[in-house]
């Protein structure tokens, strides 16, 4: 079989749900055994999962590289910063999350209309271009956004008017990400995903068997954007600070890199990728900071050349199956 080009998404079976359950159990228990900053890292990983899943959907189903996740993370973060920081309107998660969701859905839909006009290289570059437009406007509109200094002193969030402690926020993030993992697993196993794969496989044929190609592409883009919007809100609350750098395309590229490292032929890919990338980033900056670019760059390049989209999870799976055969 021609493995390098195979990007078939496996179906969600019982094993996937059990794995999800085990993962959830681990992240629920883990904070009791680790220090505060490790919990912050864990929380960041959890929060990245929705965004990486957004990239994952576009990559594994539509085969498009989506560098623009930072737009929606930025939107979510800045909405939070304005509402809970600069203008202190509210720090209620139950207001801010839906608000960010609505804003990112609307923006994603509108952007999707024209970004989705082209595919492949052009789609990727357009993602970057639109991201940079947002970045430069946010950066330059100093009086509103605080310019390069960003917005600090974002209040801690409250849930149903109950203020959340750090631990409380961690568990809220946990619930949100696990919820999104479950939701995304369902999406990936629905007829929607089947038809997206058909679109990626052969656009003309898909159209000729009655699949509304444009609308479904836009919907996929919107789902990705909505996921990132949620990430944005919770990241802003986790660090109590936002700066325009969340809008930079390099930041959005991190999610693509995560997806590649994790692998897009397995559902565990985004989760492994998010945690893998964050830990790699963190430990490289503590151990051999000077080699940061070389290590990350070579890792990804080698993964792409050797196993294609399968990533770390693909390598692990192959190893397991080999062991089992023996």
């Amino acid at each position, binding site marked *: 079989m021609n493995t390098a080009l195979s990007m078939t998404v496996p*179906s969600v079976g019982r094993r996937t749900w059990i794995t999800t359950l085990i993962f959830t159990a681990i992240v629920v228990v883990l904070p009791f055994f680790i220090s505060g900053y490790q919990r912050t890292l864990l929380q960041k990983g959890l929060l990245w999962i929705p965004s990486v899943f957004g990239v994952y959907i576009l990559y594994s189903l539509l085969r498009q590289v989506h560098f623009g996740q930072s737009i929606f993370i930025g939107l979510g973060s800045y909405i939070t910063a304005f509402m809970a920081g600069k203008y202190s309107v509210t720090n209620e998660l139950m207001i801010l999350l839906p608000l960010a969701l609505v804003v990112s859905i609307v923006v994603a839909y509108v952007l999707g209309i024209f970004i989705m006009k082209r595919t492949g290289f052009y789609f990727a570059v357009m993602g970057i271009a639109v991201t940079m437009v947002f970045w430069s406007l946010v950066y330059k509109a100093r009086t509103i956004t605080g310019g390069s200094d960003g917005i600090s002193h974002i209040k801690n969030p409250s849930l149903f008017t109950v203020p959340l402690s750090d631990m409380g926020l961690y568990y809220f993030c946990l619930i949100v990400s696990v919820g999104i993992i479950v939701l995304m697993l369902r999406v990936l196993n*629905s*007829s929607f995903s089947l*038809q997206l*794969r*058909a679109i990626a496989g052969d656009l*003309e044929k898909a159209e*000729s068997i*009655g699949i509304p190609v444009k609308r479904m592409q836009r919907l996929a883009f919107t789902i990705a954007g909505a996921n990132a919007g949620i990430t944005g809100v919770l990241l802003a609350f986790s660090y109590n600070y936002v700066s325009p750098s969340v809008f930079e395309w390099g930041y959005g590229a991190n999610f693509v890199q995560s997806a590649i490292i994790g692998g897009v032929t397995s559902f565990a890919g985004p989760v492994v990728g998010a945690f893998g990338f964050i830990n790699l980033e963190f430990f490289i900056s503590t151990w051999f900071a000077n080699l940061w670019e070389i290590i990350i760059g070579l890792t990804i390049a080698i993964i792409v050349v050797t196993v294609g989209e399968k990533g770390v999870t693909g390598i692990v799976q192959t190893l397991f199956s080999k062991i089992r055969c023996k």
Partner: protein
Amino acid sequence: MSNNEQKPLLITADKLRKYYGEVKPVNDISLEIAQGQVLTLVGANGAGKTTLLNLLTGLIRPDRGEIRLLGEKITGVPPDQRAKRGIVKTFQLEHVFDDMTVFDNVRTACFSSAGKHYSLFKDIEDENEINERTGALIELFDLTGVRDAFVRNLGHGYKKVIDIAMCFAMKPKILLVDEPTSGVGEEEKYKIMDLLMNQIEANNLAAIIVEHDLHLVKELSKETIVMCDGEFIARGTPDHVFSQEKVIEILVGKGF
């Protein structure tokens, strides 16, 4: 033409025109097809056959003219909508979803025909109705043996059959078949054609079949249209049409 009066008109095209600069692949063509009417379309390469089919399916927009389906104007309707309303086309070169199994290929079409594009949260395995229908189609088209194989690993003939099966999954009213036998071996050719014609007859479909093999054409249809430079130049029973000198000149060349 007597057929048309007995059965209701399915599709009418009125003065369709599509120019690409100097090239005029479709030049003011009018066409009427009734339910259950099977037409074959012949013509030299570049006569505009594929362009005509693409105009009917909506992949290309006409410069002028209009198309009606059951009396309803569908000129500006996008191809996916037309497919749902019953105008379905098979492709000249194989167009199938390489990275999916045969079953998934057909299932995709079944989902689409059922209009389930946006059911985001329902597991595909739980959609019993559609899975049953897919299974039935797979059996109908004799694909049971390769049900779970990846399409990319299958041969030419299989891909053609899968393509046709997907079209039938759409519950078509009219089938536009673009050279179903191109690139397929002699033996498979007849098998595919038989399958296709049986299904068309069984469902009482209208069809336009573009075909190069004149022997096949004679066997297949009661009515043939010859196309040249974007115009219809002859129409009638195959025997009648192919006896015309003009037609022979175009199809076979002046040398003979």
